[in-house]
């Protein structure tokens, strides 16, 4: 049994935790970009979040991890497995997948490719699913996304946005569902992402190693306890985990009932105009993130305080900037928020 460090036991890093929870509430938010130092618990948080989510029903034998309630035509495996004549098997319960994308991964491995083995040995043309298929209905985690080749990042974000992977290569023509939450992390000091790519991540958070001693000690203490005896550590956090899970599920249910008044839309537009963000993706994400936050906090309508809280993660990476200007984008967003909506 492999134990995962409980999400509830993370210390600090509130903004990152909130951003990850919001993407879990509304998978359409478009992923999180975590920028910051090494050893700040980024991958621990992603894995913990996936473990926090309840098991999901999966069509047995489907390599794309489809849900039994999805349309069978959408996926190459399900269209045979769940064809009208086929004998239906009971769905199995599987944990939410977290797929790591290693830096050296090639396009073939990511999108899938011709099954070379079968093509060469038996002359059959089949599709071998790649990492995107495995990440369907889960998380795709890319450490050091800024070091990934640009065309791969492009491709990933495209798929993440459309929820579908279309492969047209080597005479293959396959489309399969690939709905996943993209979590990228990186240190901007080691190379920057192109602005076009930055813009397509839903939320961006900045993480710093905590500097105050008590927090650091607490982190070390908990992690040490976890490594020493993961079982009892997880048992100890069981209640907190369950509570968080319940909250998350409730928020997911509430999400569609949260209303977004016109006033909130206007406020969002006003802020984005003031900041001069390109395109409308900023407005959309800001409103969606505020709605997810409202659902998380149990409010029925989106209010200014919700917008205020998610303004920085939703907009900080969309500012048009001089590449050489050091002014922190967080500061610029905060300034614009204060100008548009007044001080808190």
């Amino acid at each position, binding site marked *: 049994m*492999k134990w995962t460090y409980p999400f509830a036991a993370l210390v600090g890093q509130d903004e990152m935790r909130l951003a990850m929870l919001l993407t879990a509430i509304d998978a359409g938010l478009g992923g999180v970009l975590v920028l910051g130092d090494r050893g700040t618990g980024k991958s621990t948080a992603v894995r913990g979040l996936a473990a926090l989510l309840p098991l999901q029903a999966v069509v047995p034998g489907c390599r794309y991890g489809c849900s039994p309630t999805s349309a069978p035509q959408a996926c190459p495996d399900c269209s045979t497995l769940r064809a009208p004549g086929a004998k239906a098997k009971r769905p199995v319960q599987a944990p939410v997948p977290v797929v790591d994308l290693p830096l*050296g991964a090639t396009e073939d491995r990511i999108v899938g490719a011709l099954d070379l083995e079968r093509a060469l040995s038996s002359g059959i043309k089949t599709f071998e699913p790649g990492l995107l298929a495995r990440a369907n209905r889960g998380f795709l985690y890319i450490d050091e996304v800024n070091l990934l080749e640009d065309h791969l990042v492009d491709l990933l974000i495209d798929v993440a946005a459309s929820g579908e992977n279309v492969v047209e290569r080597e005479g293959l023509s396959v489309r399969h569902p690939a709905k996943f939450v993209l979590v990228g992390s990186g240190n901007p000091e080691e*190379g920057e992402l192109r602005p076009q790519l930055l813009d397509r991540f839903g939320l961006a958070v900045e993480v710093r190693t905590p500097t105050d001693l008590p927090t650091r000690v607490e982190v*070390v203490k908990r992690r040490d306890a976890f490594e020493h005896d993961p079982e009892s550590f997880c048992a100890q956090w069981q209640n907190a985990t369950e509570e968080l899970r319940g909250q998350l599920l409730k928020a997911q249910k509430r999400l569609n009932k949260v209303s977004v008044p016109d006033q909130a839309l206007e406020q969002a537009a006003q802020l984005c105009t003031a900041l001069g963000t390109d395109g409308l993706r900023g407005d959309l994400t800001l409103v969606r993130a505020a709605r997810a936050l409202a659902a998380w906090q149990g409010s029925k309508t989106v209010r200014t305080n919700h917008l205020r809280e998610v303004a920085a993660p939703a907009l900080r990476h969309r500012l048009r900037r001089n590449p050489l200007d050091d002014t922190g984008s967080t500061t610029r967003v905060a300034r614009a928020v204060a100008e548009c909506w007044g001080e808190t």
Partner: protein
Amino acid sequence: MKPNLSRVQAPPDARALSPAAHAAAMLLAVDPMALGGAALEAGASPVRDAWLATVQAHLPPTMAWRRVPHHVDRDALLGGLDITATLQTGRRVQRQGLLQHHNPQMLLCPMAERMPNDRAAWLAAALDDNAPLALLLLDEHQGDEPSERLPSTLRERLALHINLHGNSYDAPHWRDADVQRARSHWRSVAVSDAIRQDACALAAALGVHSLRAPLQLLRVARMVAALNGTHAVDQAALTLAMVWVLAPRATQLPPPPADEQAPAPQPPPPADDPNTGPDTDPTRAAPTDTELPPQVLEAAQAAIPPGLLALLQQGLLRGAAQGGARQPPSAGPGGRGRPIGARRGSPHAKARLHLLETLRAAAPWQGLRQRQAADDAHRLRVTRDDLRVWRHKPRGQTTTVFVVDASGSAALHRLAEAKGAVELLLAECYVRRDRVALLAFGGSTAQTLLPPTRALARAKRSLAALPGGGGTPLASAIEQAQTLAASIRREQQRPVVVMLTDGRANVARDGSQGREQASQDAHQAACAFAATGVAALWLDTSVRPQPEAAQLAGAMGARYLPMPHATAERMAQAVQAASGAP
């Protein structure tokens, strides 16, 4: 790649090792998998062999010892299709990857400092996945080549950082029985809250920000305590653990112990140095709330590598301690451009199978092969010789090296404009995704302000912090530019050197003053530079351009552009024109 079953025959000559080195070897042997492994900084030498033999001799008996060749490819690590066997047998034959073994293994990676990023990422992922393996990275770097550092993703995950030729310190002489006992007991060694607090404070005092470090420190301290035969981690164990875990990663010197009034010259704290980036803003300058025990601090100071202070002052440490700007895998020779046809070869991570060409190559032989085949099965018979892979046009990338004259004469006239021009050019590079490097000279030497990087904000910061003044050591500047250009070429990129100077050399190569000797040296350096054929551009920044600058530029093979009245914009345009049409 076969497990080396013959464990060392002759007993390793442990006497060749210093006490500290021996202790480190024994410590690693206790439970390598819990430590992730070790990074060993040492060139090939009998001492290193003895050290490795000591580790190998004391490892758990179930643990295999495998050497990972420097050029190991993806399939060898992660497993994949065995093409030759598959073609021969006509059914799929999988090859097991090195990282997929289920039995514990120690992977020895020689020349780890040249390990490509993708390989490092796979190994790091395997460590994160709790695969039953430990890594032993052999760091054989020589000199201060910034591109040749251990991949920081891996360095970060390995608890022990050992330098066989570094400082020596006292360490107990553990025996095999100690290792055996520690292996079964170390997990139950107790750690008090006070020790935990000390561990965190110590990491903060040494400027080690990653939270993995204090965790690894505690783990190692437990092992040390177990080796010593105690049941709780004490100060001594923590101190010894620090020597291998924290000291090599230190980015600052600890504050002096409170009781002694520190007559020793204090190093400038990195916070004062804008070169070192945002990591050192004042809030992070080690706010130690608790006082550390003086003996621990003393040990920390003694254990820090001797060159650290010098590195800190040069602002080079970012590259060393944090991995700096290693380049993305795309920048290597395997970087893909446009496909331009097929060539013979087997597909692997960097070469994709060209199916059509493969079939075309196999087609004429089908009749013959069918007759020769042992079985009657009607299937396509493809052999290894038929395989074709896509050929790609390599994508040339440019690294622009700016050599900025910060001497007194330049500072007087045009340093500000030169800086402005470089800034404008940096913005250009940002758009083209080029890399830049920054060399500055002034006073008696030239120094690399910034190794090749894409982090342009950093480039701008180092530039802004560049002070002017001093002599003009032109010869050493040209030589350094040449060295840097050569290392850029080794990375399969195209260097372009841009000199911004008035060309009035007055410091000779050996650092002595004197215009005569200095000009001669500069001329020699320029001729040597020309022999390399690196594209270069000379922007004469003096107000009244002198013929000698033009001569030097000519000797260097550089395009010469006098800029008597140029503004920053015009300089930028000139460079653009020159580097656009190489």
